[in-house]
């Protein structure tokens, strides 16, 4: 069970300029990485002998109004330690490499982010219609400033 | 003392012939009378069996089964019938109309035609064909044709799969079925049902004791014949939605539904005639003994359905050709030696 200090030290050594540790409210090992090195980064943490972070829990897209954050959550079955990886992609027409070639499980997570946030995943096997109806033409709905034809906002009741 | 229906019928027969009608007319009336009685009996049996299966399945599963329509739901099947009678009779456009129309008719007619030579009681049978068993097995294979017609004509992938599966299953289970019956025929030296029943006067020479293996093979092959229980692959809800009768609604579906239960009763009636001594029994009237034994076998087959999971298609075929058939041949050889 490598503690968070050694994990971050290992990562920063491997990618000196593109990876830096970040502090989040409940203390956890979190890293901010440059979107260009995504594939190499995941290749490294999956195969490194004392990291072995092969188990991808989930990828979530977050619309931060200035850009779109993509947050990866990984853990290792042998060493039982966890890692949060954050990257930034610009809001309109953001592009990032797909990691489904490294970890097959990322396929559907990325496909959903592509559909709901409009982030382009280069090299993804099938970026096609996933959750939304087939004749959907109103753009990615999960963006905060999105409004659609029959979208009813809940009126504010105090609070 | 035992109120035999046959004596009543003889009185009616004598009265008709005494009317001085031409001979061929008298025979015609008697034949039509017999056919009408068997038709009535068949419909009564279907009504009873459908209700009985739903009550039995309910009590197997700790629930009550139909209760609301009449006392303990005895009117349930009549209500189902009248409702199906009113349903819209959909014939989809993309369907091969003639074949689609005639499939349920053939299915019902073939399983009903086999009732002709069932010995219901002491000299109480519609006809006594000297090739009784052969006639029954020959007629019931028409059901396969109708299932194939239904599967092929309703132009639906699931129905096609269901039809193909049912054809493969029934044809392959026909072989051990007839072989298991051959053991009995070797013993009685005659194909006629009445003769077979005649050979089983005493309880100890019922064929279930002299041919236990034959009875078991017959029972297994019979459940496969009627597409029920562990072998109900053609209309497996989980895989093929509703198998071959997916496109049928209203009365056409009712015909398939009734044909299934007619087949169920027919198979158990033949089991009773061959292995359980037909209508022989101590006190009760002979036709009552026949019905009681037949309903016992029906109960066992219904019991299979609500306990066993379903076999896969290739396992079913393997079980038939690699396990049941050698056993049937062995049983035939043993019967040959035993009753030389």
């Amino acid at each position, binding site marked *: 069970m490598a503690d968070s200090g050694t994990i971050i030290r290992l990562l920063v050594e491997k990618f000196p300029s593109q990876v830096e540790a970040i502090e989040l409210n409940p203390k956890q090992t979190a890293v901010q990485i440059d979107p260009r090195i995504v594939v190499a980064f995941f290749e490294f943490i999956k195969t490194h002998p004392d990291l072995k972070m092969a188990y991808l829990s989930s990828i979530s897209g977050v619309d931060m109004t200035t850009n779109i954050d993509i947050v990866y959550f990984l853990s290792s079955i042998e060493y039982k330690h966890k890692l949060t990886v954050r990257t930034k992609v610009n809001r309109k027409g953001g592009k990032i490499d797909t990691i489904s070639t490294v970890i097959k499980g990322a396929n559907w997570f990325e496909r959903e982010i592509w559909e709901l946030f409009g982030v382009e995943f280069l090299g993804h096997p099938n970026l096609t219609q996933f959750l939304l109806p087939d004749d959907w033409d109103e753009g990615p709905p999960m963006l905060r400033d999105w409004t659609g034809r029959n979208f009813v906002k809940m009126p504010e009741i105090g609070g | 003392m035992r109120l035999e229906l046959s004596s009543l019928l003889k009185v009616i027969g004598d009265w008709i012939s005494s009317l001085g009608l031409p001979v061929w007319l008298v025979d015609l009336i008697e034949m039509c009378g017999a056919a009408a009685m068997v038709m009535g009996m068949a419909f009564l049996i279907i009504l009873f069996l459908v209700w009985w299966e*739903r009550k039995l399945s309910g009590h197997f599963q700790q629930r009550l089964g139909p209760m609301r329509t009449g006392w303990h739901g005895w009117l349930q099947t009549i*209500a*189902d019938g009248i409702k199906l009678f*009113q*349903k819209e009779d959909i014939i989809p456009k993309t369907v091969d109309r003639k074949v689609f129309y005639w499939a349920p008719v053939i299915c019902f007619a073939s399983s009903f035609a086999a009732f002709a030579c069932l010995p219901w009681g002491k000299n109480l049978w519609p006809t006594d064909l000297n090739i009784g068993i052969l006639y029954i097995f020959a007629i019931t294979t028409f059901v396969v044709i109708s299932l194939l017609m239904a599967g092929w004509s309703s132009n639906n992938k699931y129905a096609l799969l269901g039809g193909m599966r049912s054809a493969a299953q029934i044809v392959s289970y026909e072989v051990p079925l007839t072989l298991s019956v051959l053991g009995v025929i070797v013993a009685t030296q005659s194909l006629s049902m009445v003769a077979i029943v005649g050979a089983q006067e005493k309880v100890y020479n019922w064929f279930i004791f002299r041919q236990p293996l034959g009875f078991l093979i017959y029972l297994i092959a019979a459940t496969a014949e009627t597409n029920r229980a562990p072998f109900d692959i053609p209309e497996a809800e989980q895989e093929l939605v*509703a198998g071959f009768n997916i*496109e049928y609604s*209203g*009365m056409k579906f009712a015909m398939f539904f009734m044909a299934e239960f007619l087949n169920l009763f027919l198979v158990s009636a033949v089991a009773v005639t061959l292995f359980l001594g037909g209508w022989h029994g101590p006190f009760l009237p002979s036709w009552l003994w026949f019905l009681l034994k037949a309903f016992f076998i029906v109960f066992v087959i219904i019991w299979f359905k609500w306990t066993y999971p379903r076999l896969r298609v290739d396992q079913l075929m393997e079980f038939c050709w690699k396990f049941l058939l050698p056993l049937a041949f062995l049983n035939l050889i043993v019967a040959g030696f035993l009753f030389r």
Partner: protein
Amino acid sequence: MGIISRVPVIAEKIPGGAIVATSLEKILNLSRASSMWYLLFGTACCAIEMMCTGASRYDFDRFGMFFRASPRQADLMFVAGTITYKMAPRVKRLYEQMAEPRYVIAMGGCACNGGPFYYDSYAVLKGVDLIIPVDVYLPGCPPRPESLMEACIKLQEKIKREKLQDWSSDKRG
């Protein structure tokens, strides 16, 4: 069989014929009400409640209701669960495949008018009656098995009041 709809007309002329017509109507309605075969179709949480209603403690079979897998043989459709825009055309096609005297029970808040997903959701159809005619609306999220039974009894009463109609004729192909 176009005769059923002409029965009341003929019956008027015969003395005492009206009694025959009304009793025939009562029998047909009673049989349709007491043997409703429901279509096995549930999308969300209400499907679990429908399964529990079909099980031993609250038994549907007591009302003669038996589940059928194919829409052709079903004459009652429980819309149990949320209907999204992607699912709506399928629900409509399923409804059209059912044979004519067919009834729909909109089970649960989502089927009645979108339920808890009415506000702020871009993918939920606001009520199934926008696409298919509904006979009985059943509120609740999910409705208790007893209230599901109550809905079935309400539907049975509605069927018992129906007039003589002719469904099985082939006019409409």
